[in-house]
């Protein structure tokens, strides 16, 4: 069966979520500013920098959501 354009776009859907943390001052801790979806860590970095460009961050890090461990949940 011939693949449709929708199928092809579906094949490009990103599946990995990356939590984005950043800080503006050295005396501040990193805090969560949002998330991006990308299956490639390099692209995740590009996306995070383009989307969360509202401040001149001194540090920005990405954490794969899949690596986060829930300790307490209600």
């Amino acid at each position: 069966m011939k693949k449709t354009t929708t199928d092809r776009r579906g094949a490009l859907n990103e599946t990995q979520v990356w939590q984005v943390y950043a800080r503006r001052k050295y005396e501040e801790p990193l805090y969560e500013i949002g998330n991006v979806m990308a299956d490639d860590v390099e692209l995740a970095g590009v996306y995070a920098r383009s989307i969360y460009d509202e401040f001149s961050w001194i540090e920005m890090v990405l954490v794969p959501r899949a690596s986060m461990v829930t300790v307490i949940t209600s």
Partner: protein
Amino acid sequence: MTTTTRIDHEALFAVLSSLADNKQAIGRRYAYWCNGAPALEAAVAAAAMTQDELGHARTLYPLLEDFTQADPVQVEPMTRTLHYHLATLDEDFVGWCDFVAANFLVDTALTTFFEAAQDSSYEPLRQRARKVVQEERLHQVHGEGWVRRLARTGGAVRKTLIASLTRFWDETLCWFGPSDDATLQRLFREKIINANPDELRSRYLQKIMPVLQSLDIEMPVAFNAGSQRWDTTQPLPWTRWDTTSRRLE
């Protein structure tokens, strides 16, 4: 009263015109995809890259005014009727693969030139080159990331990507000019850039080929183990290349 001495330098004027027009054309083509990318994140990145490209063009056009070769009508992007950008940028991108191919091939080729101008004897270019190279790092990561992503998706997506890369290939390699290109050779002799056309082309291939090779995407080049360089394996279409506009006819 202040007087400004205008620069009489046909070669530098020609290359600056080409750089400005290519940056302007890439920016306009990217802009079309700010709301058409496959994902919201990619759309935002496209918007950011559009701003960068148009910004680069805006810093280059005013330099043209300093040259005796400048026609006042031709130094403003809004009134300019000469278009010295690649012919492959004349038309809108047909799909996202064209965006990625232009990002990966054309934008990287221009960055290769700016890298060679970071210690330029022409100060206005030196200053701009350093800023452009800094900003282009993210563009390069974006281009490489998407080439990998589209190639690994396989099937029709991979085929479309290869068709897009092929469409931009020849003209992008030609942009550096033939080995004896008088324009870039003069810039090299006068230390405005630190490489001749062949060296620039080689540096460019060294940047893009490892990515394509890792994805088994074959292009008409081969790695020469002796010289540790990539060489083209088929002649480039120099008979169709215009030395003034630095584009294929």
